[in-house]
């Protein structure tokens, strides 16, 4: 197998995650649908991450079409699950798979 992570660390600190802001998939990231959700690969950092739900993959793909992360969650994620999705997106922002527009 291989090591996609840690191959190149992102440069510098990331901005704090702000769910009231508009985010989008980083232009260097490709998503590949898989039975469990999707694989996301960052061509810049060479990092790979598993998006482990089809809905999460969909939310990530469509982030840009919503005015904010919270709006994106409200549009498609059941209320009870939104905090978990918000945390998942915060982690993706931290590793630069998604970024503020």
């Amino acid at each position, binding site marked *: 197998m291989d090591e996609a992570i840690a191959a190149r660390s992102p440069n510098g600190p990331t901005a704090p995650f702000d769910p009231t802001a508009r985010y989008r998939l980083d232009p260097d990231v490709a998503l*590949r649908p898989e039975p469990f959700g999707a694989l996301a690969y960052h061509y810049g950092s060479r990092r790979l991450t*598993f998006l482990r739900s089809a809905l999460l993959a969909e939310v990530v793909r469509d982030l840009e079409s919503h005015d904010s992360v919270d709006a994106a969650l409200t549009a498609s994620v059941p209320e009870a699950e939104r905090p978990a999705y918000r945390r998942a997106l915060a982690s993706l922002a931290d590793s630069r798979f998604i970024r503020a527009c």
Partner: protein
Amino acid sequence: MPASSTAPRLPAPRLTDQLKAGLDAPICLTWEITYGCNLACIHCLSSSGRRDPRELNTAEAKAVVDELRDLQVFYVNIGGGEPTIRPDFYDLVDYSVSRGVGVKFSTNGSTITADRAKRLAGSDYVDVQISIDGADAVTNDAVRGAGSYATARRAMDHLAEAGFGPFKISVVVTRDNAGQLDAFEALANGYGAQLRLTRLRPSGRGADSWARLHPTQQQQVALYHWLIERPGVLTGDSFFHLSALGEALPGLNLCGAGRVVCLIDPIGDVYACPFVLHPEFRAGSVRDAGGFARVWRQSDLFLELRRPASAGACASCGSYDACQGGCMAAKFFTGLPLDGPDPECVKGHGEALLGRVAAGAAPSPGPGHSVPVRLRTRPGPVGASK
């Protein structure tokens, strides 16, 4: 693979179980593009030496890249043989990158001149991995051949001078270099490079050198603790059998053969992983109707490997969840049953079984493409070597 997993906390099967059932395309694909090599390392997984007249030509190789792009394989690990001796090597690298398939290639460094290093430094999405198997010339050259340490170091110098960035230094851990881990780390740090350690397999010419070269149990324990303290050291997830010693090592702790990884060999044959170049693990060929995608998705072998496997003789061991029974290739080429312990099982279960494998009973990797000239081996007792 030390990849992260992003899951909202929802009831979902374990990622390991999902991966065992296979993916729509490999996460990581190794592509050996030539059997030709100017070295004759005594542990070469593919018994490389001579080029094979049946090797994929440039057009066929580009068609493979097109297929990988269609399958959204994000990057490919190119090796050999020494891949850079193919005259069309950089043409294929450029083609692959231009199609969105990133390239990481492994080389012994002999063609990485100052000029080539500068050109590589200017390319995105190309990672370079230089192999050495000793932290000094004596240790390295005993495995890789006279002068190979100096050649590799020269290539590293060129890459560093060219400002390539963090290239990788790739080391197969052996009995002879297991005591040099700190020295390898210092070497990598000195270059701003990344250290990558991988496991010695009894595959290819390694079948003949494994018994003498594989790390001792004591060395394995030391290696495990060394790696636990250094999550930044890359391993290709090859030491997951060591996870039975305690906390799991970072990465995917499972055998990915035919499930998340596979190998395309120089003539286009597809094998379950880079360590099982043997007819029993050949799933098909990219030259068959339907190409690589059909082999990946429909070959009998790969479908079989994705079925839930029995823990066999390991079922009663409390560590099976951690080590998953270890490496299929290591078991196969040492003559152990595939549903039992790894020959290097840290609980010693494999060692006990190895003693009972009759001489000559282990499957032979065959002569491969070895050049008739064999390297001098290390002076000293031959040990358990066949």
